[in-house]
């Protein structure tokens, strides 16, 4: 990363205490802000958007169900057996098959955007499908999610 990028990231919200708990996308710090004649640029105009989930979106799960190996995604009851046997999940905590299926079922697009770059770590070993008590076939669903996350 060059220094330009670093400076850009540092300038955003650098006065927030415990800044590392707040994701960059949630910080709005306008360069110039004029509120009724009062100059509120820079630090005074900083807003941190809430991380509250506002709505559910079921269009994503309809797309996953259309792909041939993702058709059983609705069976998942979030037990976590797939993650417990997944060898990738033990090395990379952001790769969590159970969680991916959950955010797609509930349609939390903000979470999907955060985890886009981790979803393609799936090795296709099939241990998750072996462990799943509901026969969701998570390794097949992961293939469908790889395709879906690329589009979101």
């Amino acid at each position, binding site marked *: 990363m060059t220094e330009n990028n670093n400076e850009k990231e540092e300038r955003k919200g650098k006065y927030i205490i415990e800044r590392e708990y707040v994701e960059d996308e949630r910080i709005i710090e306008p360069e110039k802000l004029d509120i009724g004649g009062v100059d509120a640029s820079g630090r005074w105009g900083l807003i941190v958007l809430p991380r509250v989930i506002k709505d559910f979106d079921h269009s994503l799960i309809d797309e996953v169900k259309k792909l041939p190996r993702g058709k059983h995604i609705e069976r998942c009851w979030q037990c976590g057996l797939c993650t417990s046997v997944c060898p990738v999940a033990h090395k990379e905590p952001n790769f969590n098959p159970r969680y991916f299926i959950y955010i797609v079922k509930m349609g939390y697009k903000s979470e999907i955007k955060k985890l886009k770059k981790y979803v393609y770590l799936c*090795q*296709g070993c099939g*241990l998750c499908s072996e462990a799943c008590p509901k026969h969701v076939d998570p390794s097949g669903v992961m293939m469908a999610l790889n395709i879906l996350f690329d589009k979101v």
Partner: protein
Amino acid sequence: MNDFPLSIFYFLFNVILFILSTILLIIRIKRWGVSYPFVKLVKELFKEKRLKFSSKLKAIINTLIKDLLSLKRAGYLCEENFHLYGRALLIYGFGGIVIMNLINFILNPIGVPLGYLHPLSIITYLFYAFLAIGSFMLFLRRLIRSNLRKTTDPLVLLLHLSLFYFAVVGISFYSSLNSGLPFLSSILFYIYLSGISLLYLFLPLSEVGYYIWKASMLLTKSLLIEHKSTE
């Protein structure tokens, strides 16, 4: 395979089926609604002027070797040696077969049987054996473990069996050629063609089609990251 027209037929057969195969893959990727990573890859490689061509190529080859050829993203993390070796044998076997067929066609277009002890023969046999053993290992793994057997998609098992069939038929065909049995080899030639066409038509529609898309996507992404880091 001793006459010239037959080898021309073999060449055209492969070319036509390859084109059909690519069309099937493109239609499948279009139905998914995602971008075509090959197109993007070529565009990034040749049109972006900010980086030198050699460094772009270096980035791609780096990803190719690290992630795909050494299987870091294709099975190394799965911690199961049987699966890893099966995968490795399958990938190297299949890649080797493609390369050896091209080399054999260039060096020996008419198809004179070279005999068992010719180095090209030995290497070709080796790669066919890799493919046969690798695909059989993967198939066996899914057959033996009862829970895995119950939850495996039947198309995946069909894929492994098709690759195994292709490898076995290839070995038989080349062996019949090298043993000098013209009647048997002409029958096995057509069975071999059936194996090839099965693969050409089935692989784009199976898991392999998805993996090809994923591999090209990874290469494109690595190139994009390389670009971003030098901005």
